[in-house]
């Protein structure tokens, strides 16, 4: 929702990616969010991630709902088609768009209000269908755009700016995604670009629904003392588990299975997600273990980050629907409409 188009300055000596594009080629309009808003750091991480992957902007579609967070798609990849849908309904629009164009890489950006309140059903069903989308929740525990009401991710005990404490139970998007049979569930922090950028790349390349819950403080309504989604609280309570990075198929891969700190997850196209463990005991391929771990750390008020669960082999939306590899919009009309003779033949059965 940029008022102002960002001038694209290009100067000599800028770094260029495999396509010869600069970071600026992956930017979008000027942000109209509050100075310091966590969401803007996520935008920067996205720009970086796309740039590092060397994707053509027009290969991507970017979608969102409504909220400060949902304005994000306007601030990166101005060369990609963007879609700011209605509140909480990004997943269904992404589903339709993927159905039509499975060749495009879909990134959906949402907020905790957008995905955990009004959009909880759509979030859940995108996950259980394993829709081919990178699904980022910019999670600040409040409704920023409507001025700071608690969202469903607000922790019990977390205090509002005016002092009242939330007492409803919190929805954890990561635990929820795993419980719903998600294939990729991660958490990060807008202030941790080092962790976030590779995670975004991994999520973009993951075949299926990659959910990344990014704690993204709202400086205007939820960054005070007593909040459990503030910069300070999050920094203090971080517990990193597994870092993930994407290694393209062409790259020579050194398999380090025994190195303990490294595990490689092979994707079907020959690429690899390389996992580095910060918490050596954590196994992101164990669904029961992941839930148990999340639950234990929740009880200790810790913010567990990293790639918390992955199963690259679950059938994706397209596997299940049996959609043709060739995008549906690219078929010849003759291959879609059976023609007059077939119609006549068919009607023989209707007499």
């Amino acid at each position, binding site marked *: 929702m940029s008022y102002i188009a960002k001038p694209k300055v290009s100067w000599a000596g800028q770094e260029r990616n495999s396509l010869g594009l600069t970071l600026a080629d992956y930017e979008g309009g000027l942000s109209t969010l509050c100075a310091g808003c966590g969401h803007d750091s996520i935008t920067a991480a996205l720009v970086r991630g796309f740039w590092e992957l060397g994707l053509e902007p027009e290969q991507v579609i970017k979608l969102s709902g409504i909220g400060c967070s949902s304005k994000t798609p306007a601030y990166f990849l101005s060369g990609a088609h963007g*879609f700011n849908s209605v509140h909480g309904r990004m997943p269904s629009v992404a589903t*339709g768009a993927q159905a039509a164009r499975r060749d*495009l890489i879909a990134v959906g950006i949402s907020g905790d209000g957008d995905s955990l309140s009004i959009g909880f059903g*759509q979030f859940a069903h995108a996950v259980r269908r394993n829709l081919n989308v990178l699904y980022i929740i910019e999670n600040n525990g409040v409704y920023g755009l409507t001025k700071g009401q608690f969202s469903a991710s607000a922790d019990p005990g977390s205090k509002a700016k005016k002092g009242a404490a939330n007492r409803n139970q919190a929805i954890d998007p990561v635990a929820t995604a795993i419980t719903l049979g998600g294939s990729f569930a991660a958490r990060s922090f807008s202030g941790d670009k080092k962790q976030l950028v590779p995670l975004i790349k991994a999520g973009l390349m993951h075949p299926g629904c990659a959910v990344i819950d990014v704690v993204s403080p709202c400086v205007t309504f939820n960054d005070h003392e007593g909040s459990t989604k503030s910069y300070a609280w999050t920094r203090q309570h971080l517990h990193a588990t597994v870092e993930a990075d994407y290694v393209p198929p062409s790259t020579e891969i050194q398999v380090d299975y025994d190195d303990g700190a490294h595990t490689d997850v092979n994707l079907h196209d020959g690429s690899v997600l390389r996992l580095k463990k910060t918490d050596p005991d954590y196994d992101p391929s164990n669904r029961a273990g992941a839930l148990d771990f999340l639950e234990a750390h929740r009880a200790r008020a810790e913010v567990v980050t990293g790639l918390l669960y992955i199963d690259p082999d679950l059938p994706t939306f397209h596997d299940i629907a*049996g959609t043709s590899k060739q995008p549906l919009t690219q078929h010849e009309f003759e291959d879609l409409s059976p023609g007059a003779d077939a119609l006549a033949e068919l009607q023989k059965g209707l007499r």
Partner: protein
Amino acid sequence: MTSGNTRTNDFVLKIATVNGTGSASANGLLMKALFRMGIPVTGKNMFPSNIQGLPTWYEIRASQEGYNARTGRVDVMVAMNAQTYSKDLAEVSHGGYLIYDSTWPRDEQLSRDGVSVLGIPLSKMVNEHFEGSRVRTLMKNIAYVGALCALMEIDREIVRTLLEETFAAKPKLVEPNFKAVTLGYDYAREHFDCPLPVCAGKMDATAGKILIEGNAAAALGCLYAGATVGAWYPITPSTSVMDAFQGFCDKYRKDPETGENRFCIVQAEDELAAAGMVVGAGWAGARAFTPTSGPGISLMSEFIGFAYYTEIPAVFFDIQRVGPSTGMPTRTQQCDVMLAAFASHGDTRHPVLFPSDPKECFELAVSAFDLAERLQTPVFVLSDLDIGMNDWMVDELQWDDAYRPDRGKVLTDADLAEIKHFHRFRDVDGDGIAYRTLPGSDRKGSYFVRGSGHNQYGGYTEDADEYRQVVDRLKLKWESARGLVPGALERKAPSRTDIGIIAFGSSHGATLEALDRLAADGVAVDYLRLRAFPFGDEVEAFLKAHRTVFVLEQNRDAQMRSLLKIELDADPQKLISILHYNGLPVTSEMIIERIGDYIRQEAVA
């Protein structure tokens, strides 16, 4: 035996059963047998909103003149359901017949003056010849088919052929079924004067015709129009649209080599999601649709307004059922007219198409996709339960292989290369329709869809003038739509008249019949059948040309009459409502009566 008038090929046969007992196939046999005898038929299914054990009725009308409306008459009633027995008896027309299962003795409520009651011990006969309770239940139904063959001279050989076709995969079932037919047949021949005066006789009025339900025809239309994405949430009476689409796609859209699907059907988690999927797919360039019914449209309203304002093509089939709210899911009405026309908050309006039978479901489904893409807007096809779920006899569907989808104003990468700037919402051609690009296009064509305020360049705006420019263009686009939607069709009365009637959708058959009968009585009424909203000039002309215009519709609140007033500033004084809204399809008798009453009153006044 009371003798009624002789009615060859002009009767209503009604069968009262309990749902979940397999009577549907027996009734289908009867319909098809009559059809193959060359007799025009229509079937109307009145079923309950549950799965098993409640009353259900099937009404077959045979009409040598080819009328297909429900009539108030019942010539022959097959009363298989004890629970509704007295109600069923009461419904039989004077001079008519009631057939019942006389296995168990019944009391005197069985009889009524002027109705001949024929008892056939169906259960007894069937139990003597078949084993197993499920089989016996099924065969009892087949046995009444046999009895009717005898009583009404329905061709038993055709029934046999139909059984052979039905059980082509399990030929062993043909003989037992035909045996059941024979049981009923023989009993009737032995015990009653066959045929009854109400009976069938071979004729030749079904050549070039088919029997089809509107929902299947609509699905065929989607298939032929090249729709690739279907998203839906199950709801009666629209479910069979997607069931049929799935069936057709499985047959015609699977890659013969890879088995891959050239379609994608998504059973959404609810109607809001189904709408979102259709909008997403339409944005991405696929032809996409969702079938639903009233409650679904209410739930989709937010997305419909979004698609209107963001100018994304999408096709919504509303198979109307009785409202308000959950209403009567298995009964018919035309009660979503206003909702479809204006769904969503703010200033919104949507083209709506009104098919009048399954053939038009097929044709207007195709038009809907062309219009949606040409106009870049959501388009409604307003069918109803009567059209959608009943078997109608219609002319064979035609397809022109030269047809190519009208994709509307879509810029390709080549087009983009030739222009300096791409502005998504600018009115280049002066028709209110802007150019669009599809996701995946060259980045020069990228733009940002938003349901919030935007200017003609596609940018976000909160500026008063920029906002207005876009919504004013949308209004101009609406004017363009008037010239693009299918026009209303006029049928002139045999003689000059200043009386007209406007009707649409499933009321068409009853209207035709009523007007013929009125004409025979010397009452001339011109007829305009609406096929779309917005209304074209022809609708205005019709209103102008007539002093009195009846508006016939199947809802309580005269919704179409409202649309005429809203949209055309029609003179309300000349618009006389004929409203029918009890959930059953409208009858021709009712129309004749209302028009007759009005004319008589006017004459007195």
